[in-house]
């Protein structure tokens, strides 16, 4: 250390002592509060967090910014204290002349700051920093460790839009001190159309609806539920609305609080179209529509629901969804390349068979989560099975894979998956929890720490793909054989491998101490590796058990999200503290019913589809037109990519040719592969958002409209060709010697599931007069129908 710097430190210390001795008073905070003593962890770091200084794009980035580095989201006070007080020759904090501290000069814009001016010289934040520096820039380790934060009030129910309310945040620290930390907390609204929130916690309601304001303070996150009712005209009497089951009771109770009146019951046409798309991704045929309309029995909707739920395509649709959830990514499956798509199909078939049998959800999950290749069979028997399955994959699409007890394909990936990935994948699939943030740092808006992330991942450290000691000899011999009989230079050989439980790998270590971490369920019990025991089995038992709040809730939420277009927790795989359910009571009730009925998926579907809530019209009224997440009306939504293809084909009455990778004439909803050789269908799937299934996120399925979709419907040569296909609906109709009126009826029923209105008839008649050729007039009409929003949206 040079003499000069030693001198400087001595001077600083003297100055510190002097200023510390003479200072006093503290800082006045917004809202009339007074802070007696500024604390590094509680206040300074609180402000770093709230102002975004320690975010990943600013000083929290791994390289820091402008030579100044803070720990990401402020989880390491010791490092931050050193950065602030020591680095950069200590110029950031200047005890001799506190106002000349670089920290203040930069943040207040007096010296150029890449991040701009964060607060002005006359702001309270400035005074907080200044006071802290004046008082010696001290740090008392651990003062900022938060035991819990409390919000007051925990819920804000406004009377009408335009009102404001204050949320107070207090923290109980590890030392038992409880303090109001409102100015140091971060507030954000989940829906800025319903309510906005100031950085002092003042919530202003803007429009009728419900949302949450998320409060976070130093990694602790809590939501405040916000309710803003509609303002009703004087004398408005809230009508009584019939309820079909507990779903309606919960939904309508919430709507009543919001002064929103549910829309009317959907018409038969509207109901039939919606329920057909939702359950089997098909449109009803014109005859089916007519039959349904003339049926006068009071329970015809319930009967239709039962019929659709028993339809083979219904199991296929949910198999597709479970393929998304479990990541049936064709490219990741094993060689040879030409069998990959077929293995993907086996994956789909495995689910489909179980869904068709309505096997309980927990049993299905068990077959995925606890899969092994041999399932207790002898190596000899198992190898015979493998040969059969491999042969089936080469030959065609029939095979016995679906008869296996477990889905070992889930664990068989060409490229090795790390335990981290298994942790993330299983948590997203079966708990609806996104863990990936916690791989590198504590999740900023959820409870998960790196330690929990790693302990959870370690559960999977014994799952091995290769050859178990028992079976090694046979597997090796078989592989030698296969290599011998293969053509030269074939690097696409199907090598026999087995998913089995090996000795656990080393596993991930504690992020700070570097000590081994015992496997532990996410927010659950320790699950140690024991010889002869499958940790996944214990995990499964915990998942489905009474102590797990995610398992049943995440799946009923997925079912609900599928049928109602918006999950109670939305996105459906984002259960986190910052993303509370829009209606907790309903979600709890649904989960309870699911558990009580022993995870009977179809029972849940029947409950939902028979509720009046599901069957409401999409036509809004004056009280519910703003509603987006309280289910006051049916939400108009895009269709899944598979449904788009199937709905188009069923409207046009054509079938799809798929090429070699997919069985001919399959419906899109029956296709297992995420990749296959057929450029036209690959393109259609891609632009309508079918997921590649490479990451464990529901967001991979794009459900937003995009321009190429519109262009596809207007111009795609394949689709235009289908309009005129000889076997297709239009050509058959034109041949059938029907009148123009009858033909128009058929086309409307086939596409929009309704008869043309008087206006539609007139539009057509006017058009018909301008086009000489009858066939051309109807081709134009069919093109126009499939290009309407009414056609391409589910409503």
């Amino acid at each position: 250390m040079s003499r000069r710097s030693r001198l400087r430190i001595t001077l600083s210390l003297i100055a510190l002592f002097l200023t510390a001795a003479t200072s006093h008073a503290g800082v006045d905070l917004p809202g009339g509060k007074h802070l007696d003593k500024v604390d590094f962890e509680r206040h300074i770091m609180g402000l770093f967090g709230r102002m975004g200084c320690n975010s990943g794009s600013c000083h929290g980035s791994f390289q820091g910014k402008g030579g100044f580095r803070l720990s990401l989201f402020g989880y390491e006070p010791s490092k931050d204290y050193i950065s602030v007080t020591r680095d950069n020759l200590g110029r950031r904090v200047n005890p001799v002349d506190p106002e000349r501290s670089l920290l203040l000069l930069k943040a207040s814009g007096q010296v150029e700051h890449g991040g701009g001016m964060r607060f002005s010289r006359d702001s309270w934040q400035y005074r907080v920093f200044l006071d802290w520096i004046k008082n010696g820039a001290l740090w008392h380790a651990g003062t900022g460790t938060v035991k819990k934060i409390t919000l007051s009030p925990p819920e804000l129910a406004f009377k009408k839009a335009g009102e404001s309310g204050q949320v107070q945040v207090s923290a109980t620290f590890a030392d038992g001190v409880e303090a109001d930390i409102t100015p140091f907390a971060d507030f954000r609204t989940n829906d800025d159309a319903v309510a906005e929130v100031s950085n002092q916690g003042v919530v202003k309601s803007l429009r009728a609806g419900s949302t949450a304001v998320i409060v976070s303070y130093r990694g602790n996150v809590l939501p405040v539920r916000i309710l803003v009712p509609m303002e009703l005209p004087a004398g408005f009497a809230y009508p009584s609305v019939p309820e079909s089951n507990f779903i309606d009771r919960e939904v309508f109770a919430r709507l009543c609080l919001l002064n929103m009146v549910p829309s009317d019951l959907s018409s038969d046409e509207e109901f039939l179209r919606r329920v057909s798309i939702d359950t089997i991704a098909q449109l009803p045929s014109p005859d089916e529509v007519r039959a349904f309309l003339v049926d006068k029995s009071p329970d015809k909707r319930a009967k239709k629901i039962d019929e659709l739920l028993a339809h083979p395509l219904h199991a296929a649709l949910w198999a597709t969804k479970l393929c998304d959830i479990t990541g049936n990514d064709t490219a990741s499956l094993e060689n040879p390349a030409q069998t990959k798509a077929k293995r993907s199909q086996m994956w789909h078939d495995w689910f489909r068979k179980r869904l068709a049998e309505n096997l309980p959800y927990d049993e299905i999950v068990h077959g995925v989560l606890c899969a092994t290749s041999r399932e207790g069979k002898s190596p000899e028997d198992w190898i015979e099975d493998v040969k059969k399955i491999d042969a089936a994959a080469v030959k065609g699409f029939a095979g016995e894979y679906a008869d296996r007890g477990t889905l070992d394909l889930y664990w068989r990936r060409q490229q090795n998956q790390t335990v981290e990935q298994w942790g993330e994948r299983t948590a997203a699939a079966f708990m609806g929890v996104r863990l990936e943030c916690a791989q590198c740092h504590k999740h900023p808006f959820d409870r998960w720490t790196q330690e929990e992330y790693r302990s959870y991942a370690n559960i999977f450290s014994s799952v091995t793909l290769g050859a178990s000691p028992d079976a090694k000899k046979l597997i090796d011999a078989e592989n030698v054989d296969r290599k011998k009989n293969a053509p030269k230079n074939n690097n696409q050989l199907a090598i026999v491998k087995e998913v089995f439980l090996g000795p656990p790998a080393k596993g991930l270590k504690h992020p700070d101490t570097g000590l081994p971490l015992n496997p532990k369920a996410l927010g659950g019990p320790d699950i140690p590796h024991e010889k002869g025991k499958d940790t996944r089995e214990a995990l499964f038992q915990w998942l489905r058990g009474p102590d797990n709040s995610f398992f049943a809730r995440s799946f009923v939420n997925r079912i609900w999200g599928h049928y109602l277009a918006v999950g109670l927790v939305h996105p459906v795989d984002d259960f986190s503290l910052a993303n509370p359910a829009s209606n907790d009571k309903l979600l709890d009730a649904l989960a309870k019913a699911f558990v009580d009925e022993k995870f009977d998926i179809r029972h849940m579907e029947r409950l939902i589809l028979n509720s009046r809530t599901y069957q409401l019209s999409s036509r809004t009224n004056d009280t519910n037109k703003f509603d987006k997440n309280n289910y006051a009306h049916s939400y108009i939504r895009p269709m899944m990519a598979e449904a788009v293809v199937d709905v188009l084909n069923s409207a046009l009455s054509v079938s799809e040719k798929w090429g070699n990778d997919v069985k001919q004439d399959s419906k899109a909803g029956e296709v297992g592969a995420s990749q296959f050789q057929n450029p036209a269908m690959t393109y259609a799937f891609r632009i309508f958002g079918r997921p590649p299934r490479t990451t464990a996120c529901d967001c991979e399925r794009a459900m937003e409209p995009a321009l190429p979709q519109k262009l596809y419907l207007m111009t795609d040569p394949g689709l235009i060709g289908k309009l005129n296909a000889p076997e297709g609906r239009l050509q058959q109709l034109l041949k059938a010697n029907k009148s123009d009126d009858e033909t128009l009826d058929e086309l409307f029923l086939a596409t929009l599931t309704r008869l043309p209105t008087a206006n539609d008839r007139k539009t057509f008649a006017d058009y018909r007069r301008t086009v000489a050729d009858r066939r051309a007039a109807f081709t134009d009409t069919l093109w126009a129908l499939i290009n309407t929003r009414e056609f391409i949206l589910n409503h």
Partner: protein
Amino acid sequence: MTKRFASDCEGFARRDFIKLGAAGLFGLSLPQLLELEARAQDAPGGRQTTRRASSVIMVWLSGGPATIDMWDIRPDAPDGIRGEFRQMQTRAGGVQICEHLPRMAQIMDRCTIVRSLAHTIPSHGPATVFMTTGNKPTPALQYPALGSLATRLLPAARGVPPYVSFSELRNGAAGQAGYLGTGFNPFIVEGAGAPAGRGQLAANLRVRGITLPTGFTLQQLENRDRLLQAFDRGFEATDRQTDLVDGLDAFHRQALEILRSDRTRHAFNLDAESASLRARYGNNPFGQGALASRRLIEAGVRFVTISLGGWDTHGQNFTALRTRLLPQLDQTLSALISDLDGRGMLDETIVYCAGEFGRTPRINQNAGRDHWARSMAVVLAGGGFRKGYAHGTTDSQGMAPATEPCTPDDIASTIFSNLGLDPHHELTTPTGRPVQLFREGRVVQRLVA
């Protein structure tokens, strides 16, 4: 002031992302575009980045070219590594390249060669993703291709698609929009891979989904559209306010605009070019595709990918290069660069020629070279890149960079910096995770003119 800063520093909020996603593509309105552009200029770090280029043509050599036999010849390497080709002097003083690239040698004074590029993935799929996204692939996140990022961040001209690709890279496993969402995928040119039918070349080129199929006239489209507007009127009453219906409506109008506009179709009308120019580009799909790319860029397209396959030369590397690959590349790439230059477009357009990796310095027993990612060379021209410059060197055996090592992230960062975009600009994934464009990338200042 404070508020605007917050959104800059934190990147786009998730809601902005969704809105932009829905507006998508050439769907942005002019004010939105201006705002976006302004934002890009304003972004932290954006101040250092001046825009030097406005569009990119990526010439993709699929399979992994043996750049050791092209741009980085090692005449002094030991037997078994030294290739069969000699090097030749170029118009860039001191820069030598393969003797079988004579036309490139003639225009080397307009190009930059990066000889010290290296990564660690010798497998086609992930290496293609790495090179075309500027981010090392990870299973946790699908990074968007450079073209998709450019589409997302740069304003687009009306009536043309912003990102056009002449082939599906790795069968669609690369070149896609990843976490940006399907709205930022490339528009794919059809008919580009078709075998060379003499004279018919490019007659069949069309971008899937943005031109009317044969026999479908514009007049017919207008008629049908009238019909459809009338049929849809009833539905409008059902929903008066959802973003979804508004979005679809906007897309509908844009779709019509594109179909009515003939800018893209015109770009593919290669008959508008002189026969001699067409011949200079090469009478094959690759050559004509390169010419169409130039025309697309002229029409306002931001990012075009053209691709030439066959570079995976595990066997008979030298024969394949000498007889087939190098002559074709030499002709087309040099024609493209000099044509752009002749039209004054090269200053604004980056030409980037690369493949997923290089090939082993050691020659295998089939006179081939195998996958090698630890050293490779790429060529850049125009759009603010230095002229007549070779960057970095490899060691005496061509195994690894010896000086100025750089990575795919660095090249991507430098390209984006020349496009006026901060390589560390932050975007938000649909899960709400903030992600920098190229977190590991740094701008290679010496590549910039």
